[in-house]
């Protein structure tokens, strides 16, 4: 590849990303706008009369909740991976009887409206005393990600050539060892994908958090937004500021993780 072409692509990439992120920019713009200017017609493209009022409110009220969100997000990732990867391996490679109906059920399970799920969890958690707890929230959030994880892993693991696992079986490896030492390392990309979405869903979840953790002392940051949604009035600059602040650490995490993963994959390729 010539250097010139690569630069051209970077430029195009930056432009595309800018278009994609324009609504995010607009959100930042609103977060800096004082109430009197919010519905100005025509709107200002830049927060010329910017106020950091929203951010001051967030700094005052919200920062402790970031840790809770992070914990819930990572917990959801772990639980999702532990549950979905082995199941997908079985569905894709061990071909259990009744496997197809099961993947079908997983697909349908996702159609249950989140609010009905939340109501179900409320009843269950109330019975076992898990309301307003972080583990409770992790389990609830994972219900979005587990069926997704199983289906995505299955799709990817289906693509792993059977001769690889067959060779391992001939070598005398059991199902578990095949899974651990052959399937898992090959599935690195899909693990990253599933983890990413599990994290993102847990991070931005609202319905479970408000139904199951509404009265908790340890709340995720998304609930912090409610602080600015009063009965009659919403403080939009603070709402947007919360969302911005909440997304910064996660965005950094995403970028770093992507770089790390990209590096890992290249390293792996060299080893091959």
């Amino acid at each position: 590849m010539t250097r010139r072409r690569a630069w051209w692509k970077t430029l195009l990439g930056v432009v595309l990303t800018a278009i994609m992120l324009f609504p995010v920019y607009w959100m930042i713009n609103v977060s800096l706008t004082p109430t009197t200017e919010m519905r100005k017609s025509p709107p200002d493209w830049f927060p010329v009369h910017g106020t950091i009022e929203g951010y001051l409110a967030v700094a005052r009220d919200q920062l402790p909740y970031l840790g809770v969100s992070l914990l819930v997000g990572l917990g959801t990732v772990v639980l999702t991976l532990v549950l979905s990867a082995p199941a997908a391996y079985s569905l894709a490679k061990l071909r259990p009887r009744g496997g197809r109906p099961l993947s079908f059920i997983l697909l349908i399970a996702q159609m249950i409206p989140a609010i009905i799920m939340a109501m179900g969890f409320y009843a269950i958690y109330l019975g076992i005393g898990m309301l307003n707890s972080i583990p409770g929230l992790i389990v609830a959030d994972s219900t979005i990600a587990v069926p997704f994880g199983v289906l995505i892993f299955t799709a990817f693991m289906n693509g792993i050539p059977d001769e690889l696992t067959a060779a391992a079986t001939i070598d005398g490896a059991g199902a578990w060892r095949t899974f651990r030492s052959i399937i898992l390392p090959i599935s690195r990309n899909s693990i990253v994908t599933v983890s990413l979405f599990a994290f993102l869903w847990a991070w931005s979840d609202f319905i479970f958090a408000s139904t199951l953790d509404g009265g908790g002392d340890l709340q995720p940051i998304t609930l912090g937004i409610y602080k600015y949604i009063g009965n009659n009035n919403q403080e939009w600059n603070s709402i947007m500021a919360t969302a911005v602040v909440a997304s910064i650490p996660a965005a950094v995490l995403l970028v770093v993780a992507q770089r790390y993963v990209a590096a890992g994959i290249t390293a792996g390729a060299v080893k091959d």
Partner: protein
Amino acid sequence: MTTKFRRGAAIAVAAALVGVGLVGCASSGGGTSASSKSYTFWDPYPQFDQSAAWTKLVESCGTKAGVTVKRTGYDTTALTNKALLAGQQGNSPDMLLVDNPVVSTLADAGILTSTAENKLDTSAIDKNIIAAGEIGGKTYGVPIGANTLALYYNKTVLKAAGVDAASITDWATLTDALAKVKAAGKKGITFSGINTEEGSFQFLPWFWGSGANLTQLDSPQAVAALTLWTDWLKKGYAPNSVIQNTQTTSWQEFATGDYAFGENGTWQLGNVKQAGIDYGILTIPAESGGPAAAPTGGEFLTIPVQKDAARYATTKKIVNCLTSTANFVTTDNTLSYIAPTADAQAAQVAGNAALKPWVDAVKAAKGRTSDNLGTKYPKISEQLWTAVQTALSGSQTPEAALKAAQTAAAAAIK
């Protein structure tokens, strides 16, 4: 091979057990059964955190009654669902503060105690305000404060357009004023016509002001009210965005300082000063003059049904504390509401003369679920806001939209 797979299976089973164990362990850690010294309080004020004056007040009333009160704020729509769900699971809070039109729904669901059971004294409360909590001859709860709608106007804009606010007494003079404002290059009026309860809330002063009745949505009077709004939109006196405006969005539009009028509530009183607008307040005029009845807003403090009836006595003490004249004044000044009793209203006006027009407006206001509509109101209201949307967006004429609404509402409440 067999042993190897067994080990795999064992690990998989172990993983399953860990999952179950997670659930199992947690069940032993603390249930939700409230102890006799701990009382729960839910309200729709998520904006107040643990250090807010409101929380302190609730807690101090608990302390006076010899118990601790744990207050939790929920988003107002989430609160209704949560209250129903908790009622279903027998886990209702000891005190529940809800938006007044919700009271009839919750009472209908059988999760609220009436004053006959909980022995609360509501005799001092203004009749028109408590009406929203009266269903089938029983009263459920005490209003914590009330609010209503009026027209905020921007003096600077009106002056530039050569309009005297005092000349606006009915719909015709208001429309004339809007025409002058538009001719002067400014914007007329903003309100909220969204397809939720907020939209009905904002339309009702005009609806009632025409003489229409909620039991007959397609009356000529109702058509006149909807035509008024539709014409404002057509002539450009009101912006197209009113169709999706919430009351907050509408307020933001008024706060730009470009609009002559904004229909909004008591609760914006603090914000209007912040926005730096030289404002005045007009009661919403009826079609042929005089003030129109505006709907009452505001929350009711209710006592949900408990398994242990012995709790009501303490709960009553806490409620009485929160609804004392002094606390009414404190609370309603914080919320920018009007107190529901004459004594507390007088104290509020003594402290802040700007509240006077709002006290009058609240006295003239009318509960949405009053006229013994109760749980029929939400059904009617849904059709009403739908009709407003249909007409404002130009999908149907006001006549056709209201006719359809009446048919649907009649079918829904039969």
